């Protein structure tokens, strides 16, 4: 247990160091496009991290997490449209809106288990999707192009791709450390216990629902943060952000990287998006290759990529 945690700390340090050096390498290689791709990776890594908190630790398979990406993204579009361009305001609005949506839908979804939970989270995400499709003021189906990226202290620093990138990286690292703390806390222990055996947790005096719902809300708020970064990266927001495919991709990222250890989700998001980039260049049939890869990883290591590196569970 303690050894595994130490290994994770080393791996996290290396991974974040690699991310920190990436713009320098991209500049040296004369490939500025890489930074833009990597910003997208960071945004998805935040979302996958948030999903792992409930999926890996809470045993809640949300199939509607793309809704929160959309909620975060539309927070940027709607506030910017109203003249509020500050990143802090965008993040705050996204966190509040994401938390509220999670509280509302989680309180209902968590009355069910297993496949029904999956279906209800999917249904709520679809409702959010169609709600934004019907928002004609924000382009409906087509979405809306942002006039500019969010501002910081009234300045347009984020226009520089590298500044946006490092902002996303700082958010990812901060949220990762927050998740590490949460999962190692009293709350995290109860949450993990409800995944393992909810009846046992009730029999020692806990009401699982409260802990699961709280985790669900934290996860929703975090995923909305990812949406804010994604909107800034794309300078564009549309209902496609909350497409159910996207929710599925988030689950795939977490499973690919290895559920329930946080770092795996980040690695999974990175690998999935890199493969998408590279394989799409090679062939139109890249999902076939990707699917095969996913099957192999899951077959040979229940802990995903992290399991392959760590070897078998002790």
């Amino acid at each position, binding site marked *: 247990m303690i050894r595994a945690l130490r290994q994770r700390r080393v791996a996290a340090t290396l991974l974040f160091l690699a991310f920190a050096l990436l713009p320098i390498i991209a500049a040296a290689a004369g490939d500025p496009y890489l930074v833009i791709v990597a910003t997208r990776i960071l945004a998805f890594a935040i979302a996958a991290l948030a999903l792992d908190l409930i999926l890996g630790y809470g045993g809640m398979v949300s199939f509607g997490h793309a809704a929160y990406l959309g909620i975060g993204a539309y927070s940027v579009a709607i506030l910017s449209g109203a003249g509020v361009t500050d990143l802090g305001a965008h993040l705050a609005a996204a966190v509040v809106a994401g938390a509220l949506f999670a509280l509302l839908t989680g309180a209902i979804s968590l009355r069910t288990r297993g496949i029904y939970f999956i279906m209800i989270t999917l249904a709520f995400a679809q409702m959010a999707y169609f709600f934004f499709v019907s928002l004609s003021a924000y382009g409906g189906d087509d979405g809306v192009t942002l006039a500019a990226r969010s501002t910081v202290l009234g300045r347009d620093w984020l226009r520089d791709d590298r500044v946006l990138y490092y902002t996303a990286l700082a958010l990812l690292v901060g949220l990762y450390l927050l998740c590490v703390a949460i999962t190692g806390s009293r709350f995290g222990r109860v949450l993990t216990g409800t995944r393992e055996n909810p009846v046992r947790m009730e*029999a*020692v*005096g806990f009401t699982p629902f409260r802990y699961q719902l709280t985790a669900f809300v934290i996860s929703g708020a975090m995923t909305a943060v990812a949406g804010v970064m994604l909107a800034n990266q794309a300078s564009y927001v549309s209902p496609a952000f909350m497409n159910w495919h996207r929710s599925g991709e988030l689950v795939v990222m977490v499973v690919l990287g290895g559920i329930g250890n946080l770092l795996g989700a980040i690695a999974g998001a990175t690998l999935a998006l890199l493969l998408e980039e590279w394989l799409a260049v090679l062939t139109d049939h890249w999902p076939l290759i990707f699917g095969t890869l996913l099957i192999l990883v899951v077959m040979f290591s229940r802990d995903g990529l992290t399991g392959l590196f760590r070897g078998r569970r002790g």
Partner: protein
Amino acid sequence: MSLLSVRGLRKSYGALKVTDDLDLEVAEGELHAIIGPNGAGKSTLIAQLSGQARSDGGSVRFAGAEMMGKPMPARVRAGMSRSFQITSILPAFTVLDNVAVAVQARDGSSFRFLRSVAREARLNEQAMQALAQVGLQDRADLRAGSLSHGEKRALELAIALATRPRLLLLDEPLAGTSGAEAERLVEVMAALKGRVTLVLIEHDMDAVFALADRISVLVYGRIVATGTPDQVRADPKVRAAYLGDG
């Protein structure tokens, strides 16, 4: 004064009356064994008393307060704890954490998000005490799922003890154990006797007659006899309904 007072408790699964207008009094400090043939409704009774299963009617008073309608966590916090006939632990947790989480449940709020729980010495110390009570202190750092069956039974008991119950409902704690493991658990229960009020369901008659202050015999959801071990042994109804067929 009864610590636990059950009146007219009922539960049916379809047409099957599993608990049939059952009355039961358990005095503070006693070890009250409940015996009965397979399918008599013993586990169902524990589930109803602990709040895990809904009752169709009746009253369950614990320490003077009505427990009917309260969910299991509320009853645990009120001081009623239970163990499971089929081992119910957190397999991926360490043995220590299985017990520490039970300590945590009665030690302040668990809506604490940032501080490392593994470093909360108070929780771990109390958990170690409970483990020592059942002889598992050497196993503290192992994954609970990797324990032997007998060790898991001991862990089950340690978890229940860690909630510091006033009333402990034990559903066949010896199930599947034998020899030294069973003896050890009987010793643990003997040591608890008098300090905690115990309701013990058990098929091992040697253990029951050695430990119990009083015994109730449950047949088809009804208590057909209650008394001291000697009275129950001598009761002709009991011999016919239960002891005779074993």
